[in-house]
């Protein structure tokens, strides 16, 4: 019922604003802040953002009070089904027919890159929270989107550097998903490992997706490397970790380094197989009181602990709404400029700052998966080992190929 009512009011509001001709009204266009949430709601990436991310977004809107300077906040959502053309055409339609002010979510890199092009073409605004590709604020950067939670650069940088420098893991074997994302991650790791004085002694590129990893794990065992780096994602990572456990990789003295591992992956696999896994994360729900307080509120609504992406969606939406409130405008350039001027510090981001390439840099954390004995309850999964300062974690602007950066 509420849904029907909501869409009715939207429809009425749309009709009204269309009649008014949107020109020089108050600075918030159409007298409403309209947020569209686009994510994979049913496929591979459902659990790391998906419906839970939409709930986080709704939480932010409620906590903000439901309106900005009297202009009500409208939230609508769509499933992109991990398809770039579905995503791009949905956003195009949101812009053309609903005059959307901000697009949130954005998961699969293919969808994100397609959507950001539409956003730029129509001068709208997007906040990318779930995509991994660092190219989103590098060669694919636009003035119309920002990238909030993480990307592949700090994942490789954080995990690989910490392992070589602090754990003494000098020799690496890379297990790489054979597509653009995997290659990029492998390249980043190789560079970091070599800079830190280590060596990549072997690698195997497996097709995406792969059902059985035993052959590749056997090759990794045969290489004699100390560390097996997993440059893959989602089901492939879960699968390789489980297979490694079956083949007694850790007992034999090798260690796994997960380069893109989410809380939901570890939760799904359980601690038996994942214990000791090193990974880099942008946020962890149990890292301090402030995070815990928010996470527990989230848990009450969804019955799951939030991933870093879901927390990031809340955080970024809050900052966006604050910027709209402060500037009294939902114009992309104005909002972005305001956000760039602010220090970003909340339960999610520490020492955060929005750079001119659209990258929000903030402290990242090196974490290790707990052993079953050390874990106190179902969601007690990570131990934070170290903080990677924001300025060191992300790709420096001096290396940027972004058109917005003067080099």
């Amino acid at each position, binding site marked *: 019922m509420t849904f029907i009512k909501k869409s009715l009011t939207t429809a009425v509001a749309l009709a009204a604003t269309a009649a008014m001709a949107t020109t020089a009204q108050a600075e918030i266009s159409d007298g409403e802040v309209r947020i569209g949430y686009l994510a994979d709601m*049913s*496929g*591979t990436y*459902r*659990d790391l953002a998906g419906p839970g991310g939409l709930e986080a977004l709704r939480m932010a809107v409620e906590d903000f009070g439901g309106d900005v300077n009297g202009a009500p906040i409208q939230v609508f959502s769509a499933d992109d089904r991990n398809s770039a053309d579905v995503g791009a055409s949905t956003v195009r339609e949101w812009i053309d027919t609903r005059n959307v002010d901000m697009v949130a979510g954005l998961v699969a890199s293919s969808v994100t890159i397609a959507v950001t092009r539409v956003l730029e073409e129509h001068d709208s605004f997007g906040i990318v929270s779930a995509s991994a590709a660092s190219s989103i604020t590098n060669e694919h950067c636009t003035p119309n989107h920002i990238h909030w939670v993480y990307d592949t650069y700090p994942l490789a940088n954080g995990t690989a550097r910490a392992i070589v420098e602090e754990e003494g893991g000098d020799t690496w074997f890379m297990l790489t998903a*054979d597509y653009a994302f995997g290659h990029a991650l492998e390249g980043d790791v190789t560079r970091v490992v070599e800079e830190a004085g280590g060596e990549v002694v072997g690698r*195997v*590129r*497996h*097709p995406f*997706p*792969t*059902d*059985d990893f*035993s*052959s*590749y794990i*056997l*090759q990794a*065992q*045969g290489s004699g490397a100390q560390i097996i780096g997993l440059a893959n994602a989602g*089901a492939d990572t*879960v*699968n390789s970790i*489980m*297979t490694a456990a*079956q*083949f*007694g990789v850790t007992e*034999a003295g090798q260690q796994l380094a997960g380069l893109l591992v989410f809380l*939901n*992956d570890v*939760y*799904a*696999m*359980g601690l*038996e*197989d994942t214990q000791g896994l090193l990974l880099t994360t942008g946020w962890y729900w149990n890292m301090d009181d402030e995070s815990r307080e928010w996470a527990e509120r989230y848990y009450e609504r969804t019955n799951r602990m939030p991933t870093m992406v879901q927390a990031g969606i809340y955080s970024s939406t809050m900052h966006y709404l604050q910027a709209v409130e402060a500037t009294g405008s939902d114009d992309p350039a104005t909002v972005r400029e305001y956000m760039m001027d602010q220090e970003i510090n909340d339960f999610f981001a520490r020492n955060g700052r929005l750079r001119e390439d659209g990258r929000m840099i903030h402290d990242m954390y090196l974490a290790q998966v707990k052993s079953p004995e050390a874990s106190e309850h179902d969601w007690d999964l990570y131990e934070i080992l170290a903080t990677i300062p924001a300025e060191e974690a992300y790709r420096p602007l001096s290396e940027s190929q972004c058109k917005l950066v003067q080099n």
Partner: protein
Amino acid sequence: MTMIFGVPLAVFMGQLLLGLINGAFYALLSLGLAVIFGLLKIVNFAHGAMYMLGAFATLLGMRYLGINYWAALLLAPLFVGLFGMLIERFLLRRIAHLDHLYGLLLTFGIALILEGTLVNFFGVSGARYPTPEALQGGYQTGFMFLPKYRAFVLVAAIVVCLFTWYMIERTRLGAYLRAGTENPALMQAFGVNVPLLITLTYGFGVALAAFAGVLAAPLYPVSPTMGSNLLIVVFAVVVIGGMGSILGAVITGLTMGLIEGLTKVYYPEAANTVIFLVMILVLLIRPAGLFGKEA
């Protein structure tokens, strides 16, 4: 150390063994498809979903009913088999008189429903099923560390395949089945209850898939989508083998596992593709598949 094409003999042997284990899965799955195809002439597109259901029944049985692995090995295929029989009785039978392509389309729809529904309840991350205690750990063979469970999978799959072959080739029920494949009308005239035979066959075919699912549960993450990619590979195996022969399905399954295993060593990027390449080659030389009869 002896080298085979630049790979140490030990590694080579290990990879062959792993390939054979994967081949055992292909064999089980394509065997079920072949049995169903033989009598119903339907390509069972829901086969991957049934495999997934087998794994899920195992997982949920443990979680909510406390059924252990060994019981699940029997109960999950039974449960999925019964479910399959319901599908045959109430859905497939209604279109049995039509072009068999409709059967393919119907089972495709069923697969969509099953997978999509489970995604909404269990997400896609996949859950872990513990390896049964008796099969934890592994053997340190001369050339590799072989987890006990994988060795068990290989043996169990081959035993079930042989059992199926024996059932079909050497028992009265199997004789009915083969006769029903050749001429159902005549069988009916001899007083054999052909519709019941068909229901049982479909149930048995999907039970084989579910059995593979149970075997897979401790190996791979149990997720609603685990069957959909595998299905396509198994289809290729079936095309290569030719759909007529039971033995053909088993032999081709194991062989394709081996070929894929070797590809993972020499050219891992092509591991998913090699089966389709073999398929095209086979089709060029023998359009009905290796063991198939020319129509």
